[in-house]
């Protein structure tokens, strides 16, 4: 595992050296639906620019288009990094408009929402293959992380040799287990936080500066 860690760090350093010092890095916020990606994106954007990115909702696929907040400058311990935050739709392998009906959404709207959701997932995958320089992978720490979508996405991110920071979100919820996420992806460091309550954001910003700076 030591060799693997060293190899990964070498890859990260090579990837990092490709970044131009003055160009903002596009950091994609990825994860399954309802992990709290937009809540995190809003938290980061609000803390450093005073503005938010998008609407938060408990309904899955509220984010159906990738949304960007440009030139977010994060400073920690004298180290500064400027990033473009890309808040992406939650990735899934299935979308059924009937699932939206359970959230008191009319059928026509549910059909439209599901259509937009499928386009959004496809767009998110395209961004991942072509257009991001690093990834913040957000998981709901109160749910089982050992899902196929998570396994596939982490594998895809690793194959792209992108620096990735795994965040165990929603630590404010009963049943939250950060170690469960750490055990699912032991090859990566896992940082706990509650984007909703803003807890442990100092460490999150420190890691963003470290991983993407």
């Amino acid at each position, binding site marked *: 595992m030591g060799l693997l860690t060293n190899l990964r760090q070498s890859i990260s350093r090579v990837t990092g050296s490709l970044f131009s010092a003055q160009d903002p890095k596009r950091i994609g916020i990825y994860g399954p639906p309802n992990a709290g990606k937009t809540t995190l994106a809003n938290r980061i954007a609000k803390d450093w620019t005073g503005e938010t990115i998008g609407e938060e909702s408990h309904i899955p696929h509220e984010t159906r288009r990738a949304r960007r907040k440009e030139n977010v400058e994060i400073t920690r311990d004298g180290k500064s990094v400027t990033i473009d935050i890309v808040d992406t739709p939650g990735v899934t392998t299935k979308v059924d408009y009937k699932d939206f009906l359970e959230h008191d959404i009319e059928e026509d709207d549910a059909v439209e929402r599901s259509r937009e959701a499928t386009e959004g997932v*496809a767009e998110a*995958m*395209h961004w991942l293959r072509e257009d991001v320089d690093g990834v913040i992978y957000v998981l709901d720490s109160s749910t089982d992380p050992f899902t196929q979508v998570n396994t*596939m996405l982490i594998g895809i991110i690793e*194959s792209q040799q992108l620096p990735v920071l795994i965040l165990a979100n929603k630590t404010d919820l009963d049943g939250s287990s950060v170690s469960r996420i750490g055990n699912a992806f032991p090859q990566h460091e896992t940082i706990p936080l509650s984007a909703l309550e803003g807890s442990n954001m100092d460490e999150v910003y420190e890691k963003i500066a470290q991983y993407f700076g």
Partner: protein
Amino acid sequence: MAELKSGDDGTDGVRIDLISADRLESLRTMEKIRLILDGVHEGNVVILESGLAPEEESKLIEVTMSEISPDGFTGIEIETYPGGDSKAGIVGRLMGNSSDSKMTVIGPANQIETLHKDKDFISTLITRR
């Protein structure tokens, strides 16, 4: 969309297609994706002996999304787990082309439900619709 299949003796069931590693290796990315999705569209469960590379999995998700329609195809359920040579798998992943030793089960989302999954065990319920 998914139909029951009838065997030669008239009995009904779910068709399962097992695709060998050799067969997969001879196909290009889109040929693999079409082979999978055409089967799943017909209500079949497709089992790949050797799985897909991460790039191919990414394309599979993207193409699947483009084919979802209301009251029709709702997507796929997919489960994989690595084979015995995990060391080779990790190196392969670092090289970005690991599709070996990764058995993969893919089926219609409305017919397959994963009951349990951990690092070396998957329990799946396949229903007939």
